[in-house]
């Protein structure tokens, strides 16, 4: 059943975000006539001894529509030339194992398409959509209240992969970004324009930092899910002076992480609810590319550039064959602080028994992807210029208040307070009340020097809204439904918890 569902969902995806053939891991460059396509088109996992029927279609322009199949990785193909072909996984594997099946047109050796697969150990199949995450200080501690995980990044169309740990899980941004130094053994395919200028991405964060680097296509394997041909940002180098300014976080000590897994409400890092992508010229919003986002660069410099949605750095979830409508981040409750706190990131909403919405309240969002929080008489919403949001990548509760700010670190409050509460309200008029407590950040850090998880860390967001950071996730399951994706509770974007 899962295989059938898979195909239907990827077709929906293509319509929703315009990913088209790029979403399925096909290796055919845009601009070159597509001559071979595969069905299924999107990467997926295979159970031990499991089989998968793969069909190749060759464009009618070629007189010879035959294909030759090749297999990289373990398992067997039923034939080297039959179409369709059946892939059979090995009877057992000890760890998640990458496999790539490639079809090459008999009439043209340069016309190929591939399907990235992952063979799972039998014990992992039932939880194929679940990724372990941990608040553990990351690769450059101390890092309080950061949730980190591992992803496997592969050169596209190959089984050459590197597993990168220390990736920050961030519901406040979109797209996978990884330090160049962490994938030194890989050969990603960078995107260029017709002049050969390389597409670069600038991701700006509200804290004054940014990441910069080329966009590369990779096959990304996360838990048992596969995102084939995913545009990722390879963090490296320095942008030209101009609109991409601030703190250039291009090393692990600067970033506090080896990369960022952005799993926010939008499909890509340049997408606005109800509008589409202002970075894509076909959206027709602006006469020139938005500042501080995408650039094409040659040896003589960089120019701001429009980029089609299908080439934008994207949330991996929407490239999966299934479980692709959103995510669920779950952590146990935490009293006080802890050295580590283990949780899960589950892909899909209402697609498996482990990601059902249940009685969670749905919070629809406005055109900024924000909702309303009322806290101590302040109504924090977009109408007041103070929209509120949920952000696992913020390492505390952050909100405007007259509470005492720490003298040595003005980003945190140094005033212990219990029995605080705030009321959240979605644009669908659904809401509930959140109870929380905060502590003196200096005391927390000084008396718990070996801890990374703090349930009561908070700081000011003067002039802004309520930023519900990682401690909000402790003791909750928080659902993030992606813009344009269908769920059992309607179409994203929305939060639910």
């Amino acid at each position: 059943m899962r295989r059938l569902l898979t195909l239907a969902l990827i077709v929906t995806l293509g319509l929703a975000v315009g990913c088209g053939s790029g979403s399925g891991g096909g290796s055919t460059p845009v601009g070159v006539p597509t001559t071979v396509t595969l069905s299924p088109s999107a990467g997926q996992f295979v159970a031990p001894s499991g089989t998968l029927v793969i069909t190749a279609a060759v464009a009618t322009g070629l007189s010879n529509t035959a294909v030759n199949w090749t297999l990289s990785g373990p398992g067997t193909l039923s034939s080297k030339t039959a179409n369709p072909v059946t892939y059979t996984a090995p009877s057992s594997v000890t760890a998640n194992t990458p496999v790539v099946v490639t079809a090459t047109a008999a009439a043209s050796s340069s016309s190929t398409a591939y399907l990235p697969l992952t063979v799972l150990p039998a014990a992992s199949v039932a939880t194929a959509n679940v990724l372990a995450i941990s608040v553990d200080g990351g690769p450059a501690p101390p890092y309080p209240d950061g949730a980190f995980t591992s992803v496997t990044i592969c050169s596209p169309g190959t089984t050459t992969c590197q597993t990168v740990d220390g990736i920050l899980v961030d519901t406040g941004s979109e797209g996978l970004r990884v330090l160049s130094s962490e994938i030194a053994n890989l050969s990603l395919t960078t995107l260029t324009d017709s002049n050969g200028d390389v597409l670069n991405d600038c991701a700006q964060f509200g804290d004054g930092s940014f990441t910069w680097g080329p966009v590369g296509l990779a096959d990304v394997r996360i838990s048992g899910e596969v995102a084939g041909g995913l545009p990722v940002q390879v963090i490296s180098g320095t942008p030209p002076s101009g609109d991409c300014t601030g703190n250039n976080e291009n090393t692990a000590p600067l970033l506090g992480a080896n990369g960022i897994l952005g799993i926010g409400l939008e499909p890509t890092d340049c997408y606005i609810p109800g509008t589409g992508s202002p970075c894509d010229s076909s959206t027709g919003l602006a006469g020139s590319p938005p500042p501080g986002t995408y650039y094409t660069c040659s040896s003589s410099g960089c120019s701001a550039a429009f980029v089609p949605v299908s080439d934008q750095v994207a949330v991996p979830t929407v490239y999966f064959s299934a479980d692709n409508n959103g995510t669920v981040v779950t952590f146990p409750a935490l009293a006080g602080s802890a050295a580590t706190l283990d949780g899960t990131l589950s892909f899909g909403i209402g697609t498996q028994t482990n990601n059902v919405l249940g009685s969670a309240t749905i919070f629809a969002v406005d055109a900024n992807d924000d909702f309303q929080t009322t806290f101590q008489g302040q109504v924090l919403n977009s109408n007041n210029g103070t929209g509120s949001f949920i952000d696992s990548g913020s390492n505390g509760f952050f909100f405007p208040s007259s509470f005492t700010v720490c003298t040595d670190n003005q980003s945190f409050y140094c005033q212990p307070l219990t029995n605080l509460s705030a009321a959240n309200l979605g644009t669908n008029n659904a809401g509930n009340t959140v109870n929380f407590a905060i502590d003196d950040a200096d005391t927390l850090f000084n008396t718990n020097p070996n801890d990374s998880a703090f349930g009561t860390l908070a700081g000011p967001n003067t002039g802004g809204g309520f930023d519900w950071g990682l401690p909000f996730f402790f003791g909750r399951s928080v659902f993030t439904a992606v813009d344009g994706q269908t769920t059992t509770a309607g179409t994203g974007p929305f939060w639910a918890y």
Partner: protein
Amino acid sequence: MKISTTNRRQFRPSQLGLMGVGLMMLALALPASASLGGDLGSVQADQAQMKASIKITQSDAYAVHEMKTETGTVVREYVASDGHVFGVAWHGPFMPSMQQILGTYFPQYITALKAAKAGQHGRRPLNIQEPGLVVQSGGHMRAYSGRVYVPEMMPQSVNADLIK
């Protein structure tokens, strides 16, 4: 990392032409002086650089020059009666150029930013409060907000909360 390239994407000629014109306008509009602490000329330079529409609201102690860019970001520049910009606030899907907004204060901002990040790992709203410069910035991807101001330059009757 080795990089191989492919012409996966092709600009249409009309788009290339438009882009070239946009860049030329940018280059011509770069101001000699910039916003924070600058004079009215720097406001006009900002408007040109951002290709924004402008709306001016005058009150007793100051004027607000509100610029809305075509991508939806709103930048408000607060101008004292002596003609100097004492504060700038922004909201919107794209960060304005901090270099443009901060002008001569940009190096001080970068130094303070690096110090703030070096002191404590983690991502959170920025709160820089130094003598002569306050920078507060936050939000999330495609919905940023923030403000900068110089406390010493504020008109006496003006509270910082007005800069938003």
